[in-house]
């Protein structure tokens, strides 16, 4: 009997996480897109109507936008990986692994992000240099901090602690029977996680993970204090030569808004497209 005759339920391969049948077509844009369009229109209008100073500001800070986006995206990808490790650690039955993961989460969440960023930029390289001196490792002794690298490390370590808890909650929200069914078929713990639990948990945690991305984008402005020439720092540099705070900081704020509003729409879109049928 032809069991696979095409019908209304015919689906694309499951490997394409983002293409579950029955999910709303993404073409439908919700009303919040108009807010983004409005902000972009406002920026364009300002730039066209008053190129001086607004076009000058945009041109001046544009490499800062690139640095902000780059720092955020790289730190976020690393956060997803480290957060998963932390989250699995928090679920481990092994008391040592559980203890280490919990200690990490509790410590990091108790220290302000700004202090962490400053520590990674100013203190960590000194630690490396002193270790180098003690053990005669010249490459460590001569280590000089790379501001962007240190900023990405600082953001990642901090955000991964929060992400661990999101992963943990997401994994725990999947009914235990899913894992049991997978194990009863002979799959290992890792196989069951990878094929059964995580694909479902990812859909559950998408909204909080999206929030984390946007929060990270905004908090990335803190890296301006550790010598990273991001959007915020470029704004400050522009202002220190021109002394026009209202125009400068309003434009910087609008540029951040474009980035965050756009991210929020992307998250909502991914959410819609990965909904599970039934």
């Amino acid at each position, binding site marked *: *009997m*032809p*069991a*696979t*005759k095409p*019908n209304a*339920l*015919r*689906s694309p391969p*499951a490997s394409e996480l983002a293409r*579950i049948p029955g999910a709303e077509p993404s073409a439908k844009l919700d009303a919040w897109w108009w807010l983004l369009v409005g902000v972009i229109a406002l920026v364009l209008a300002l730039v066209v109507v008053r190129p001086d100073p607004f076009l000058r500001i945009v041109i001046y800070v544009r490499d800062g936008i690139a640095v902000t986006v780059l720092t955020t995206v790289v730190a976020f990808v690393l956060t997803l990986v480290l957060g998963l490790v932390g989250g699995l650690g928090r679920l481990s039955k092994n008391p040592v692994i559980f203890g280490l993961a919990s200690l990490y989460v509790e410590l990091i969440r108790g220290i302000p992000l700004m202090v962490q960023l400053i520590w990674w930029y100013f203190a960590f390289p000194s630690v490396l240099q002193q270790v180098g001196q003690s053990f005669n490792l010249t490459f460590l002794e001569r280590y000089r901090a790379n501001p962007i690298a240190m900023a990405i490390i600082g953001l990642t370590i901090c955000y991964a602690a929060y992400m661990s808890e999101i992963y943990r909650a997401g994994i725990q929200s999947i*009914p235990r*029977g*899913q894992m*049991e*069914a*997978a*194990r*009863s*078929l*002979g*799959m*290992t713990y890792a*196989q069951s996680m990878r*094929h*059964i639990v995580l*694909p*479902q948990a990812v*859909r559950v945690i998408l909204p909080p993970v999206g929030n984390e991305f946007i929060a990270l984008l905004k908090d990335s402005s803190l890296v301006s204090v550790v010598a990273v020439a991001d959007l915020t720092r470029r704004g400050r540099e522009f202002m220190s030569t021109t002394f026009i705070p209202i125009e400068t900081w309003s434009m910087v704020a609008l540029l951040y808004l474009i980035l965050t509003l756009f991210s929020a729409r992307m998250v909502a879109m991914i959410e819609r497209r990965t909904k*599970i*049928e*039934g």
Partner: protein
Amino acid sequence: MQPIIQIRDVHKHFGRDIHALRGVSLDVNKGEVVVIIGPSGSGKSTLLRCINRLEEYDQGTIIVDGIPLDTAANINAVRAEVGMVFQQFNLFAHLSVLENIQLAQRVVRRRASAEARKVALDLLAKVGIPEKADAYPGQISGGQQQRVAIARALAMNPKIMLFDEPTSALDPEMIKEVLDVMLALAHEGMTMVVVSHEMGFARAAAHRAIFMDEGMIVEESTPEKLFSTPAHERTKLFLSKVLL
């Protein structure tokens, strides 16, 4: 011939207070169908779940098809040979019916996609719902989900099938379609251990019926004898509540 399942003096505690299994011993022969009944909390599901080590036990030994359930490798080996069907179906919610049946074949048995697909389609036809191959679990009825769950377990070519109250979560009109699949399986000579109060199924298919209470096997005999002339008071009392 050596029994395919050998359970020796198995004890299981939940926390401090609950002694769920109190020294259970049981042999199941190849091709035998055993039905376990008993009140809620009697340990029957726990015992079943110990056979593929979904539940760890504190004391005693279980040997399945000559493999003792001790190391992680042995446990996975046993699980690949022992199919399990759950009360709540536990189909993988994010995968289609076909993918549900194919996944473990590919990941555990390392079968090629085409072969896994063929096995899955054949089994879907066998359980009577080939037209649901591309549906998702949330789109089909409970009875259909449970039949897919049986097909998913059978796709691994198990030597033993465990059923944990397979019809308890079903609407009445869907029970028969699941029992029919189980009956067919029993008639093919599958070794089955079934926790269920479906007396009709037990009478039609089971070689042995076991009554459990308070973590122990109280009595066992043929289904006919156990249901009509139970030897123990506790069995009588339980049956008087279950049978109308």
